[in-house]
């Protein structure tokens, strides 16, 4: 009679043991996977070779994994270091190399490589592929123009890219205008504001959008003060020293508020800037 109980008990014990081990194994594998997310990569040529007939799908997969890696990093509240950014850049570049018409890597690259990774040169290198292959897409050269102007401080190059963008179908009419202004303006605050507005319209990412809005608002504040300074000079024949001067002369009754939490001021050389330096001020 005892024999009829032994086997079921043994089976039940084995199942229980298996479940425990499986749970343990799973957490170990997850830890391993997180470690692996150092994002190693293969040279583009090797990927192309291995992808065989499925290049486009492999491009999608590489991009998707990079996207979720980046999302995971952000969710954990970490900031990627330079090496990680390099790895992310290389992965997006690989995806774009496999399918140069694929639009997501370019938008993602523009969103993170410029503002967060401080890699505008690499961003433009990536976008250049998009510019060449997506010949009907005006956004590619537009992004490049913005980067050249805003990050690389190369107004001539920025203007050239913008001209190209304006010639492509579907481009916003503002683009040509911006190109022209880039060639002429000295400081370029107005241009920058227009650029930022256009950029915001082209961005899907909510976080980036609000960043751009803040930036545009800060620059608008600077612009307002710059115009006030100009009028002061016209009226009084000399430059104002502080914002007080502008306020007291009723040219600027209200001082604009810096959305980054800093205070606008007039520098000794006459340029208008803010103590926040256009970065969020932390207590």
């Amino acid at each position, binding site marked *: 009679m005892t024999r009829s109980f032994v086997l079921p008990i043994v089976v039940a014990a084995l199942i229980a043991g298996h479940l425990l081990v499986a749970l343990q194994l799973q957490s170990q594998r997850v830890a391993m996977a997180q470690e692996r997310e150092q994002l190693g990569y293969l040279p583009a*040529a090797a990927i192309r070779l291995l992808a*065989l*007939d499925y290049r*486009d799908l492999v491009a999608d997969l590489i991009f*998707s994994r990079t996207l979720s890696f980046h999302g995971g990093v952000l969710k954990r509240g970490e900031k990627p270091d330079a090496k990680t950014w390099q790895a992310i850049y290389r992965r997006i570049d690989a995806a774009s190399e496999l399918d140069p*018409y694929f639009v997501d890597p370019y938008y993602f690259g523009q969103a993170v490589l410029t503002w967060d990774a401080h890699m505008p040169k690499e961003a433009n290198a990536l976008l250049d592929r998009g510019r060449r292959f997506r010949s009907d897409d005006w956004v590619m050269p537009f992004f490049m123009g913005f980067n050249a102007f805003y990050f690389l401080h190369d107004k001539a190059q920025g203007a050239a890219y913008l001209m190209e963008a304006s010639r492509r179908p579907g481009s916003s009419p503002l683009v040509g205008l911006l190109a022209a202004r880039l060639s002429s303006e000295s400081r370029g605050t107005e241009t920058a504001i227009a650029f930022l507005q256009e950029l915001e319209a082209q961005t*899907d990412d909510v976080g980036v959008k609000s960043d751009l809005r803040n930036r545009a608002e800060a620059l608008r504040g600077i612009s307002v003060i710059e115009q006030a300074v100009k009028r002061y000079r016209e009226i009084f024949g000399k430059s104002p020293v502080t914002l007080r001067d502008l306020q007291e002369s009723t040219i600027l009754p209200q001082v604009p508020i810096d959305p980054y939490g800093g205070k606008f001021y007039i520098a000794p050389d006459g340029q208008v800037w803010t103590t926040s330096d256009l970065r969020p001020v932390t207590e």
Partner: protein
Amino acid sequence: MKHLWPIAKITFLEGLRSRVFFGLFIVALLLFSSTYTLSYLFPRDVVKVAVDLSLAITSLVGLILTLFLGTQLLAKDLERRTIHMVLAKAVSRSEYVVGKFAGLSLIIVCSMIVLGGFAAFASWTVDLLTADQYGVVHWPTFVLALSMMTLMLMLLASVIFFFSSFVSSTFLALGLTLVIYLIGQSVEELKHFLETGAEGVAISPVFLKIVTGVYYIFPNLAAFNFKTQAAHGLSVSLSDVAWPFLYGVFYSGVMIASAAWIFRRREFT
């Protein structure tokens, strides 16, 4: 060559009713149903990814189908001696080879029409349910990609036939064809990579010559890949299509003619 149709027809029926066929279609259906959910992982190019996925599934299932049915329908004939009953009828060896190939090609074409239909439906669903800002499916290039894929599979089938004509084991014929597939898909890429110079790696000219030789002997299967064009709706000129098409026809022709020639000399104990 008037006995082609009876041979083609029984080959067609035999392949159609095999379990591999049925099982693969079930797998394909399951894979296609994932297209919708997977496409949405992407921010913008949703339709492109849907097309990528559905065409990739079609390609993969079509490949497995071709490899298995191709070996089953010929090499198994030889292994199990079913060929005796066919050749004892007033059917020449050439008619046999060509007729069987016609039957297999018919199965491949019909399968690709069905699989392509599923692929089209999956892509169309995603297209329908997303705003047009995410792109639309360009049907002419989509159909073109499917057609060239089918031609590629028929070429592969002709290679299977060629090997089966002198190799006795189904397993060996399958293995050889798989190797040809892998080489055929990568040789163009490898040759290009070697010619344009690798990143600081020294290339021996002998190796380059070997790869060039391989490029001309082995079928360049990458030439039949129009999936990128289909995913982005890129324009395709007539010569872009005509040359690969002719290449496929000629290469398959050489394979089948050689197989028939080898068969004439072959004994069936």
